């Protein structure tokens, strides 16, 4: 490729160096067969400390009540909802990689799909905590589901908040099934490799007795396709419904039809940034550089650039519509966003999401690992602030000036935010040592020479 002339008649190899199939087994199952080293324990102790900070904040919130949070009268949603939308968004990259890129036959996804799906599951778990605790009495959350309860009352199917319950729980379940179906052949490989008796039992049970039979592969591939077909509209629907939580309300700054596509693009944007951040460490620590190649990272950066520009377009369009609609409240809401008391948050969001990703136009920067890491971190900072700006600025200054109030998060709010990162990364660390973080079967299928040449056909 460095010569400048690319031969498009041949398919590009997504796995570098044509490794033997057995060496792929050895490499990917190595973290599972070896004892964790010191660095792993240091990383785990950091994430567990963050988790404990969150646990203390959570217990305090339960014991003393949600008055410990910064939520006040106009800003009833505050940080819990900001964090919820942020984490659900992080999850979206996983399904995009595993389902949409699968349908689009993007073979480079095979190396990163498993890990991204795992991140989806953990991110949705993290996200689920926040609306549950934001209700104030999480032990009553069972009433969110339509079951014949003692009040003889059913849930309100007209409410976007209820749609959210269905969307997020469906999303979690389907992602988990997708993930497990992908893991079955890998469990069979691990079962046949391991010498440890206990592991053998565990892998035998989880592999369900997979034999690599082509009569099974045939149905398996069909189901994988069907699941990808389901997961694709599902992932689009989830953040659409999350955006309905805002868009269905009549608050200026929320009540716009651009919200669903804008939220979905934003979710993919932040999710890809998070996946890219973590993969940079994974490929380095476990020596997966030839499986998760620099080309793959570059392709992810291109998607970050694309979705970042969609988000930037949405920011611009919101301002245009505020002016073009001629609605006074709407115009005020957006001027207030950019130049009001939360202008600092708005400009952090704008520069991190729209300006900094523009560096990815330059190929050299797009392929520089330290640089792309910093940009992706900034993207996630920006996307967190986007949710903050949307939630807080609109609520703090609504139609009635007499009810305006400034929202200041408290230390408990921040402890929950830190705790959510601890929760997510603790699961991620445990995942890297208990399950194959790269799909062994899928990677084998895209190694050069793994598919028949069909020379006689």
């Amino acid at each position, binding site marked *: 490729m460095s010569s400048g002339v690319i031969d498009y008649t041949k398919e590009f190899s997504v796995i570098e160096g044509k490794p033997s199939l057995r060496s792929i087994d050895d490499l990917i199952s190595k973290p599972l067969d070896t004892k964790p080293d010191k660095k792993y324990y240091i990383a785990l102790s950091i994430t567990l400390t963050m988790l404990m900070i969150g646990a203390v904040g959570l217990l305090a919130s339960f014991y003393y*009540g949600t008055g410990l949070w910064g939520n006040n009268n106009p800003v009833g949603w505050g940080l819990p909802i900001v964090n919820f939308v942020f984490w659900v968004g992080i999850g979206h990259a996983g399904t995009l990689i595993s389902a949409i890129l699968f349908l689009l036959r993007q073979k480079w996804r095979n190396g990163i799909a498993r890990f991204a799906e795992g991140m989806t599951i953990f991110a949705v778990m993290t996200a689920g905590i926040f609306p549950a605790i934001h209700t*104030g009495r999480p032990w009553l959350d069972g009433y969110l589901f339509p079951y014949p309860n003692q009040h003889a009352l059913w849930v309100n199917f*007209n409410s976007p908040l209820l749609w959210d319950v269905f969307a997020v729980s469906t999303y979690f379940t389907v992602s988990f099934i997708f993930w497990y*179906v992908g893991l079955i052949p890998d469990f069979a490989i691990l079962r*046949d490799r391991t010498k440890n008796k206990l592991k053998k039992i565990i892998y035998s*049970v989880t592999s369900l007795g997979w034999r690599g*039979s082509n009569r099974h592969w045939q149905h398996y591939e069909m189901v994988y396709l069907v699941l990808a077909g*389901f997961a694709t509209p599902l992932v689009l629907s989830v953040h659409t419904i999350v955006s309905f939580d805002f868009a269905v309300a009549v608050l200026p700054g929320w009540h716009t039809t651009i919200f669903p596509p804008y939220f979905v693009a934003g979710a993919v944007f932040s999710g890809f940034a998070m996946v890219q951040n973590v993969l940079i460490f994974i490929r380095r620590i476990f020596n997966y550089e030839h499986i998760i190649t620099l080309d793959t990272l570059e392709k992810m950066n291109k998607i970050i650039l694309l979705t970042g520009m969609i988000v930037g377009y949405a920011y611009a369009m919101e301002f245009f519509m505020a002016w073009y609609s001629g609605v006074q409240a709407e115009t005020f809401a957006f001027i207030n966003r950019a130049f009001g008391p939360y202008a600092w948050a708005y400009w952090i969001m704008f520069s991190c999401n729209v300006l900094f990703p523009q560096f990815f136009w330059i190929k050299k920067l797009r392929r520089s690992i330290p640089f792309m890491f910093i940009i992706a971190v900034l993207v996630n900072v920006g996307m967190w602030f986007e949710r903050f700006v949307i939630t807080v600025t609109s609520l703090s200054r609504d139609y009635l000036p007499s009810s305006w109030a400034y929202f200041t998060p408290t230390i408990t709010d921040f402890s929950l935010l830190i705790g959510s990162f601890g929760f997510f990364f603790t699961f991620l660390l445990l995942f890297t040592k208990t399950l194959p973080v790269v799909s062994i079967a899928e990677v084998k*299928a895209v190694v050069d020479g793994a598919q028949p040449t069909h020379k006689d056909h």
Partner: protein
Amino acid sequence: MNEKILYGYTGLFDTPDEIIEAAEKVSAEGFEKYDVHTPYPVHGMDSAMKLKPSKLPYIALVIGLSAMVTMFIFMYWMTSIDYPVIVGGKPFFSFPAWVPVLFEITVLSASIGTVVAMIAVFFKFPNLSHPLHDTDFMKSVSSDKYGISIEAVDSRFNEDYVRSFLSSIGAKEISPVYWDDEEVTFKNTVLKPKFLTFLIVVGLAVSGTTYFTLNKLMFMVPFNWMREQEKYIPQEISTFFEDGFSMRTPVKGSVALGNIPYRFSGDPEGAGEALVNPLAVTKENLELGKEKFDIYCSPCHGYFGEGDSRLKGQFPNPPSFHSEKVRNWSDGRIYAVLMDGQNVMPSYSSQLDRAERWAVILYMRALQRSLNAKESDLK
């Protein structure tokens, strides 16, 4: 059992091209009970083995559509029949708002259903007692080799013939696979006492923990979290106020918002002279009066005020409204009866608000007029 039962013969190949070619030959030779084992799906193998396309998409379609229809009926029943609640002025049957939930339920059911059907029906999994498990053949094909297995139950199976056939198509490490004794003599262990005891113990532990958590733990300090708050609830003892009551009496002379104090308690004649019905004789007022009369007055006084109680003697019958005495009472005098009660009739001041009391009196007047009409009414 000393004699082992033959499962079949297996052979290994090194490259995907070889296995495709071999599968075509095995299929052309007329074998039916054979299988190809590969570490990953090899393109073109389905046509080489002449397999029919998978029927799983149809299962997904059927499960998804039936879940959608069921959920639709369920939502209609919940919101329009079982417990209709008006939300934001929307109709009970507000289909557009149901689309998101219908979509999610369709996807959820179809995904779970298809995967369960694949695993349980198409693969007959979990199956950990297959003879191929734990063989060198299995270990090779799950890693980097491609294998073919021909089962002994195939109609064309013959040990020598299959062995020579496999070597003729280029297979390596041709070896027989036998059933393990455990696999042949396997019996269902679900009904063994040991397993049943285990199930019972698990069931008791789960239900006990759930009961304890929901009914005991939640009420223990400090798990009663938000139940204990720094505020007084009605009837609670106060340590702050001297009289020990947490509920305070209103300051003398205070009047509830919108309430006009009744000055004639214990003085019905005074009320009769001073009070005048403020309501006009309109259709709305009479209808309000009829509604309240039928609810609160008619059980004892009868629907037409004739004193014909519907209580079947369980409570003394009151006198008729149509007597000379009651007809000649002023509206204010009847109002006094509603406020204070009379004889065994209690006060209805808490059941009826001011306008309702006067409306009831208007309706009573109409009833009286119906039995004792003046001549002028006939015109």
